[in-house]
């Protein structure tokens, strides 16, 4: 019985891993093909089934004048916008979440849960509803087609995620920890920064990871709110798609764009396995 269970368990893991890993392998092999190799049927093994070439990768940092798409600048733009917006969202979101978790707010029928829902409701609305107000506001501020404008918009988009995750996290942190810190001589700010915040790092990492993923993969607002001065990676990658789809370059750009998220996932996993609140309240 145990052997059958083990067999089924590992069988399922293998099948699931294939579903997860196969697209990466497919993209990796395609990124080393040329037009001829892509159109001559399904081939997977370099040197045996097709002759590998770096042309798909070279296109990514050639200038448009020399037939490339130059993703280097959009790549760094994406890093700046996503990291800045995520960092600010986490900082503001953590403070807002702590207040929503620990203090009672009441304005008529609106209470803490309603305010928390208000935050996350920003993510429930279709992006197109927000696009016109954002466009007009950034236009007024002279921030259309700028990194600062994009960072501001992304903060609006990412902070609800941070608030939502952190409220839930703080609700699970016993209030008695804050109270003990107060009794031990901390004022409320010291209690937050000396005791609550150091114990909230796992929650902040999770929230940060989600912010990075949502920020990094956004295409809609990056497309609507930028023109020629500033471009983010997803918009530039789509620009690759001309009359003949260059699958080799698309595959290379897809791999290079997903690489930071994979790195983040590995780092986060290490932190998450280390940090927890056991010992605060056994």
């Amino acid at each position, binding site marked *: 019985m145990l052997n059958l269970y083990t067999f089924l368990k590992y069988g399922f893991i293998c099948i699931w891993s294939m579903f997860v890993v196969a697209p990466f392998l497919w993209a990796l092999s395609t990124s080393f093909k040329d037009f001829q190799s892509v159109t001559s049927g399904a081939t997977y093994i370099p040197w045996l089934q097709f002759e590998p070439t770096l042309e798909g990768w070279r296109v990514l940092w050639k200038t448009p004048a020399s037939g490339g798409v130059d993703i280097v600048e959009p790549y760094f733009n994406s890093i700046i916008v996503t990291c800045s917006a995520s960092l600010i969202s986490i900082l503001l979101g953590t403070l807002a979440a702590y207040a929503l978790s620990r203090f009672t707010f009441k304005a008529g029928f609106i209470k803490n849960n309603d305010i928390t829902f208000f935050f996350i409701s920003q993510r429930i609305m279709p992006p197109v509803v927000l696009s016109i107000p954002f466009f007009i506001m950034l236009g007024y501020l002279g921030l259309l087609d700028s990194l600062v404008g994009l960072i501001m918009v992304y903060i609006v988009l990412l902070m609800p995620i941070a608030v939502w995750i952190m409220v839930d996290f703080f609700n699970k942190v016993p209030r008695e920890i804050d*109270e003990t810190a107060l*009794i031990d001589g901390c004022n409320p700010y010291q209690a937050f920064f000396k005791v609550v915040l150091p114990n909230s790092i796992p929650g902040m990492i999770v929230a940060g990871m989600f912010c990075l993923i949502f920020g990094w993969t956004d295409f809609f607002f990056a497309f609507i709110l930028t023109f020629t001065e500033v471009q983010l990676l997803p918009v530039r990658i789509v620009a690759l798609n001309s009359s003949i789809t260059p699958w080799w370059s698309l595959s290379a750009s897809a791999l290079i764009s997903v690489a930071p998220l994979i790195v983040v996932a590995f780092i986060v996993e290490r932190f998450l396995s280390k940090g927890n609140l056991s010992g*605060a309240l056994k």
Partner: protein
Amino acid sequence: MDLIAKGLTYKPEDEFHLNDVSFGMQKGELYTILGRTLSGKTTLLKTIAGLITPEGGRMLFNDQDLGQVPVWERNIAMVYQQFINYPHLTVFDNIAFPLRQRKLDDGIIRGRVMDSLESVGLTGFEGRKIQALSGGQQQRVALARSLAKQAGILLLDEPLVNLDYKLREQLREEFRNIFSDKVSSNSILIYSSTDPLEAMQLGGDIIILDEGRVLQQGPAHEIFENPANTRVAEISNDPAMNLLSGAIDGSKIVIGDDIKLAVPAHFKSLTPSAYTFGIRASDVSLHQKGLPFKVELAEISGSETFLHVQSGRHTIVGLLDMVQNFDAGDVVNLKLDATRLYAFGQDGALVSSPFAGDF
């Protein structure tokens, strides 16, 4: 009195958590707040700590109005029933935390931390992470932190309730030594508990709290011998004192149709009237010539048996020696020791006790 509370009232919604609570406490003494769950014990401790601001009343500590002093400036330490520590700090840093907040000299901090660790039997654990400790050890760290602070008021909110039985017994015994050694005559020790036995064992004064009200305050033996009313009699005994409505009719105590007892000597001065009679479970025993009762439940607890029996509309719990096997529906003969009966008036107040006669 060093800590004086006058008319503390806290009613956050429709229910009183504290209702006109007044008491006086002296340094060097141990006070146990005894009450059932949701009686207001934790609210009272948090009010003393300053975590809850009462809507009415005031507190004076060393003649200073505590209402003007924020939590972090009060000279108070508190141990919760949950094992509350700072998980990101080592054992040493946990205990040193309140001392560092006071910006004490490093040498003094080290001395106090090591001294506290020794008091709670955790010498050698100072470098460990909190997560690496057992539940009992974590609670010892919390206790050591409160001792190291050398606070004027030490609040212990059911600190043993989440420990297993053996550890609870062991720590309770150690508590007495720790308190007598470390909590000097400069501190007031306030311990809250739901367990009457624990309150009696700790000694000191007991404050009976029920639905936010102080029902009685006095030395442990006084509460045990002369509970002020029926509610105190229930709260301060485990199992709760049996309370039976009846009357004194001539030379007999008549309880319902079936229970008739001779009026004991300490009831002689009571006028024939209706009373509520109280008898502890330990004063109920098996006796061949006793009154017949129908068994509802027999709970075996170690070397004793809690026997729940019924007669008419009265249910009585008896605490019998040894393991006694009875099935529901069995009829047993029980003797209610009339010389240990209490009498409470129509308003529930104690009118006669086997220990002090009439009131």
